[in-house]
């Protein structure tokens, strides 16, 4: 057992332990922090697989963006120290059985599939230059069309978020009238 294997098992324990605690913790803020640990573990797994660019994106977007957004919304919507109601015991048992059965089933499929045993010996080149050239290439196998589509999706999501989360107009007007009356 060399150092790479030990690192892999440590990272896997961090990912799975963080994931289990994120879905079982009764305090919502703690669940968010365990999710943070799990996502950092996934970034570490990407570093271990030597895809540094994806690992950096994972840290920037998930750890720096989505988890912070989730924590903000926890603060905005509820008392973070409050314990959540526990689900019914029957539901816990059936969900755990479904998850265990699913894991065992897929694991069985993975172990008996022959194609995963022959690993390609070619060198893996995932530097940022290769990724950027192929992503913005307009020739075949270029990803410029999905890149543009996803940029439009991000713009639409941004505008949509503002519209959804904005207070209705008449409510805002009544508030301004009240404020001016107070003055």
């Amino acid at each position, binding site marked *: 057992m060399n150092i790479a294997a030990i690192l892999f098992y440590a990272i896997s324990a961090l990912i799975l332990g963080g994931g289990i605690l994120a879905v079982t913790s009764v305090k919502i803020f703690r669940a968010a922090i365990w999710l943070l640990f799990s996502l950092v573990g996934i970034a570490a797994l990407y570093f271990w697989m030597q895809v540094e660019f994806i690992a950096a994106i994972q840290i920037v977007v998930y750890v720096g963006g989505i988890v912070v*957004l989730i924590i903000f*919304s926890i603060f905005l919507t509820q008392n973070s120290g409050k314990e959540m109601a526990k689900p019914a015991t029957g539901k816990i048992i059936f969900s755990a059985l479904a*998850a265990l059965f699913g894991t065992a089933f897929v694991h069985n499929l993975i172990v008996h599939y022959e194609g995963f045993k022959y690993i390609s010996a070619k060198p893996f080149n995932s530097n940022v230059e290769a990724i950027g050239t192929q992503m913005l290439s307009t020739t075949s196998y270029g990803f410029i069309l999905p890149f543009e589509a996803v940029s439009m999706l991000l713009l639409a999501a941004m505008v949509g978020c503002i519209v959804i989360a904005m207070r209705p107009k008449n409510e805002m007007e009544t508030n301004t009238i009240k404020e001016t009356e107070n003055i």
Partner: protein
Amino acid sequence: MQEIPLTQILFVSTALFFIGMYGLFTRRNLITMLMSIELMLNSVNINFVAFNKYLFPDKLDGLFFTLFIITIAAAEAAVAIAIIINLYRSHNSIDVDDATEMKY
């Protein structure tokens, strides 16, 4: 590096996916359900990167799929949180059991 076979990485991502599924089944709070969905999306990303690295190392398509999934997950989380905050304003709760107007 060769000591860890591909199947073990796939097992980690499988376990993470079903942990997310367990959370989606048991949680009744919208924010924690969103967190479970993020776990499931991340397990899929691990699969894409592992297949790309071990089975098709001369291509980069798995990495692009991972990048697009991360982008769409960010957009999805932002929209979901806007909806959650709006729901909290009208119902004073983000429990799925309290939002039952469209159920019947």
